[in-house]
């Protein structure tokens, strides 16, 4: 894949706009975004080829002036420069009736750098027709496996992202791709109907097409077992989490709380715990667009800061958080490359990218064998952060009972992990040596500002409240 022709054609316009606005404002940047997303899917009743929800094309102009940041999002920056600049000047205003004062912006760093980045992919080597044929063929193969299937859906989602960042001293461009493949089924058995799915996520279509059939048996077995699942008896138990649930806990329970714009707003308890134990000494946690290649990977963030690889927890001690440009400025720290926007139409905040607990030294079998009575908690459904108060709500699809050190056939669903974050993280007593990072997730801040992220890690043994 190559960098967007459209953004390339607007490079000189962006430079001219920055130069013109710089006559008035201390800091000026222009971010151009061109994302082409497509979805191809087939289920038992319908097939589909459509534009994906991430599709967008536009620009955002950011300046510092009057003690505040001003931003203007628009579709195109080509045209009469004078007219555009006047329009932008006119839009940068706030009412005299506003009774609140500007925050005051410190000097923004604008270190010189001119660089192009590209992560090769194979999106242009596959037509929608090929992808549709693949989806239909895999769907039919799955349907042939059981009469319990009410509906089977196979989908491929591709995203091709190009971004251009121009400030007075920087000119960066990047292009990269990501592919999600998904298999989901609706299964009826034992007078119960259940829904379950799983997927593969890779930088190339070829890798997803090769790996996706590998999830089918697991999906069908899980769907079958879910029809036998019983409600969880609320209580506190020894648990082992699978990689999905480790990722969800890592992301929701702790990750949101170390987004450093939350430090600036006094919205995160973690601010008081930098340099202190927040987890068991065998816990190490990272976040970074450069920490691995997954859904949250890029080369520079939406504020022109190069991607980072941030050690958040080292041997159980909170080392640092992750920051966007303005929170780093306010806190006097170096930005970590986590300034992300939902799109060119939305504000940048400090956001997670690829967030995970690092692998340990234990074996999953030994972790399960160490539990007399507890649960193996699997497959994340959703979660909700509470960084100020460190309350947890992480929902798992199911849990399998462990008795006398062995997994049983007793399944429970759904399962909610709740409690207090440090209690949970400090209770981690074993960490497995394998590690998987799952790149199919979307993350909101509060109830909005959705960005693509990955999370994961090893299996961990802990003690938690289940309901």
């Amino acid at each position, binding site marked *: 894949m190559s960098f967007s022709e*459209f953004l390339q*054609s607007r490079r000189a316009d962006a430079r001219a706009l920055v130069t013109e606005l710089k006559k008035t404002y201390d800091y000026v940047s222009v971010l151009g975004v061109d994302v082409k997303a497509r979805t191809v899917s087939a289920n038992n*009743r*319908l*097939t*589909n080829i*459509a*534009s994906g929800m991430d*599709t967008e*094309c536009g620009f955002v102009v950011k300046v510092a002036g009057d003690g*505040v*940041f*001003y*931003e*203007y*999002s*628009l*579709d*195109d920056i*080509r045209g009469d420069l004078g007219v555009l600049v006047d329009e932008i000047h006119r839009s*940068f*205003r*706030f*009412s005299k*009736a*506003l*009774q*609140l004062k*500007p*925050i005051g912006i410190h000097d923004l760093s604008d270190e010189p750098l001119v660089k192009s980045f590209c992560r090769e992919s194979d999106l242009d080597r596959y037509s*929608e027709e090929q992808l549709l044929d693949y989806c239909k063929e895999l769907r039919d193969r799955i349907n042939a496996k059981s009469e319990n299937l009410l*509906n089977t859906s196979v989908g491929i989602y591709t995203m091709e992202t190009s971004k251009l960042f121009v400030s007075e001293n920087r000119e960066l461009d990047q292009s990269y791709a990501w592919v999600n493949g998904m298999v989901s089924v*609706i299964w009826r058995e034992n007078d119960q109907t*259940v*829904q379950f799915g799983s997927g593969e996520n890779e930088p190339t279509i070829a890798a997803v097409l090769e790996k996706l059939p590998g999830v089918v048996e697991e999906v069908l077995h899980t769907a079958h077992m879910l029809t036998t699942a019983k*409600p969880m008896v*609320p*209580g506190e138990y020894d648990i082992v989490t699978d990689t999905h649930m480790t990722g969800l806990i890592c992301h929701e329970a702790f990750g949101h709380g170390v987004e450093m714009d939350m430090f*600036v*707003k*006094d*919205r995160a308890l973690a601010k008081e715990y930098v340099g202190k134990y927040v987890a068991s000494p065998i816990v190490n946690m990272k976040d970074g667009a450069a920490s691995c290649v997954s859904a949250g990977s890029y080369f520079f963030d939406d504020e022109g800061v190069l991607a980072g690889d941030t050690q958040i927890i080292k041997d159980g001690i909170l080392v640092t958080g992750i920051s966007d440009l*303005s929170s780093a400025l306010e806190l006097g720290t170096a930005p970590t490359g986590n300034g992300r926007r939902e799109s060119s*139409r939305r*504000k940048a905040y400090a956001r997670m990218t690829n967030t995970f607990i690092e692998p340990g030294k234990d074996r999953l079998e030994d972790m399960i064998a160490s539990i007399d009575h507890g649960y193996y908690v699997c497959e994340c459904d*959703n979660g*909700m952060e509470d960084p*100020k*108060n460190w*309350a947890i*709500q992480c929902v798992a699809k199911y849990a399998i009972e462990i008795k006398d050190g062995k997994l049983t056939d007793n399944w429970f669903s*759904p399962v*909610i992990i*709740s*409690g*207090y974050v440090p209690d949970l993280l400090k209770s981690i007593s074993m960490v497995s040596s394998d590690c998987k990072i799952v790149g199919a997730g979307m993350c909101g801040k*509060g*109830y909005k500002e959705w960005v693509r992220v990955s999370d994961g890690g090893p299996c961990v043994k802990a003690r938690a*409240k289940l*309901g």
Partner: protein
Amino acid sequence: MNTIIEHLKSYNADFEYKINRTRKESYELFFVKGSLETVRNTDNCDREVTIYVTHGAYKGHSSFFVYPSTTEAELDRLIGQTIEKAALISNPDYALPAAQTGEYAIETNFTDYDAADLAAEIANTVFGANTLAVTSLNAVEVFINRITETVVNSNGLHKQQQRWTAMVEAIPTATEGGESVELYEQVNFNALDLESLGREIADKLSQAKARHDAKRLTVTGAPKVILNSQELMELFWNFADDLSYSAVYNHHSVYKKGDALQTAPEGDRLGITMAASYPGCAGSRAFDADGLALTRQRLVDGGIAVGCYGSNRFGQYLGEEPTGVLPILTLDPGTAEEAEFVTGPYLEVVSMSGIQTDFYADYVGGEIRLAYWHDGETVRPVTGVSISGKLSDVLNHIRFSKECALFGNYYGPKKAVIEGMNIF
């Protein structure tokens, strides 16, 4: 838009089309600890073209976006490619909405204001609502949006609606004795009522203080639980989603017309109606993305599913009258007198992380961030507890308040009392 239509009409092939043009202009203020941090303006316009190709008994569709950079030659190429893609899709045939024209302005009083002045008034009201010594608003965002949506199709349908919406996100915080806690508040509306907004924020600030003072709760037995309108909205939208034409057609739904949602009702009978608009509701609109006029639809009556709702396409697939994708859920008020809500012992939920429901597993539950525990004599704020129970039991015994409230895209009982929940 006209250029796109001209190219579609002059393209030499047999197909139908729809164009969705959405222009969104916004003015946004972002505050950090009471100071203005960022001012944002947006002016963006999306033009999405959907092409439909009928072949035999089948119809396929596919779409593309037109950007300012799209040249007329590229437009022709995109039309040609999209016709080919649509022809690969073999879904059952259906008819696009018939010719109809109209211009609609969703009722609002925002048009009386300049966007910057309106945002300032809202921000002043939000911050002015904080009158407690120990509370603050550590982060506030104010969005004013003007959205103009146009739908055109090859049958001659051409409709436009303009909607104004406002969103306030506020983080009420209470700090005392070196300990600080917060709650989350998001208010969406399309009619300015500063008094009501101020009251809402002041209530949340009081609740943040209550959360600061809250203790963990240990209870035995299963006392009754009071849910508020936010939890009722989350709970009953699950039923509305389940009874949509697309969910039914794709076998995603658990319920179908004629099914009893309440199998042995001993409380109030459920009544759910989907609506197009409600005064003050930011979700209000005149037509959906197909340009289909929205028709009010009764989904549940007397606890029985009596109807479904949804888009032009899935309605036709099911042989039902398309109602359009209705944006607002209204729930019938109940019979419970105020006295029923205030006789203890009971747990009055104020804020949850989100109410979780699983129709398949017959489950409802969630983590409570703030509730008031009424033991019959005293009232105290509690936190760090969760609730869980059987959804079918909850539905069979639920009692709704007579008093109604608007919350997000929900209008219905302000409170409900449920029983048989585990509190842990």
